[in-house]
């Protein structure tokens, strides 16, 4: 029993990211409003970012900025610094995420201009009546 509790506690970062990811995925699939879908996509993205950053953590380590710069030629111990790689990947991903959010919102505005609604079922019924007329 204690083993299970220990593994659950030791990996709490994964539970958080899985919960966030499920929330985002559910919003993307099941929500009717396009803006809510976009918000779901962003929650999903946050989950991925959290996952990446959390695997870069090392216990007792500091941020990946090397302390001894001049003169000291001691060997640098990588265990003292966090893994910079996930930070690098997520640094760009965050900004790209904002840019893609802009594109998604632009699409939503286009849809609204054409159908005067952002509800998915109303848009679909409008498209259906149009195809039936043809």
């Amino acid at each position, binding site marked *: 029993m204690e083993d299970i509790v220990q593994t659950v506690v030791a990996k709490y970062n994964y539970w958080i990211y899985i919960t966030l990811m499920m929330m985002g995925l559910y919003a993307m699939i*099941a929500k009717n409003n396009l803006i809510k879908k976009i918000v779901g996509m962003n929650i999903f993205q946050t989950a991925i970012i959290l996952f990446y950053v959390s695997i870069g953590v090392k216990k007792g380590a500091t941020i*990946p*900025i090397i302390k001894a710069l001049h003169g000291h030629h001691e060997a640098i111990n990588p265990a003292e610094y966090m893994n910079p790689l996930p930070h690098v990947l997520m640094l760009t991903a965050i900004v790209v995420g904002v840019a893609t959010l802009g594109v998604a919102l632009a699409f939503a505005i286009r849809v609204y201009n054409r159908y005067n609604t952002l509800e998915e079922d109303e848009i679909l019924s409008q498209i259906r009546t149009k195809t039936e007329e043809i």
Partner: protein
Amino acid sequence: MKAIGFVIVLLTGGFLIYAAADFPGWGDPNSPASLHVSPYYLENTVEQTHVPNAVTSVVADYRGYDTMFETTVIFTAGVVCFFLLRTLLRKEPEDRLYRHVLTGVTIRVKEGKLPPSEEFERIDTTWTPHDLIIKTICRLLVPFVQIFALYVICFGHYSPGGGFQGGVILGASIIVYAISTDLRSELQRIREKTDALLSAFGVFLYAGTGALCLLLGFNFLDYHALAPILFVNRVMARSHGIFIVEVGVGIAVMGTMIWIYSVLASRGHYDEGL
């Protein structure tokens, strides 16, 4: 649809939880992600690039290609927003509304327009909120935010920061100005054309630095090559090369953030916006 969605989400969650059992624990220094290239970056960043911040050296030097195309993605997103929404041919309304800034009196001008002045500002609807306090506070805040942004860009080598973060802060300062006043007064400071050119110029600066290295006989984005141009040794040349590239990223991100905001906020009409 909701039930199917719920089942899919539960299945995905179940698989992820099942997979998480094999993942390394929180804060494990021997997790696979921290074993292969990342110790190399940490051990050699000072020696090879003279940049103590490993994140900066990895972002702009070791993984320069990745960052270059991320910048291109951001620029492309700006262009996509522009082409999706911008309406270039738009009929101007026949009568224009102007507000006297000090008294708040709105006047309607039929035919023609008032010359641009400090006293009158153009508005689109008869009731447009006019918040003197917010306007003044934001105007006072903007220069400090911008100086902080420049600090973040320039000190990316030695402290947390760099082109992406600084560029976003710089863009945010302009967006704050646009929200607190209106889009027209923002466009008087940065025109749409300037903005688009800035974001293209940032990407150009990045790719151009890489191409310059190519012309000097080294690999693409191998900043060693810049040593004879910058009159420094090869290690410092890499440091300076990273800085040039970070400035390019900052400019591109700033331009694109403002561009996307102004297109989205005015639905492509470039009127008074939000």
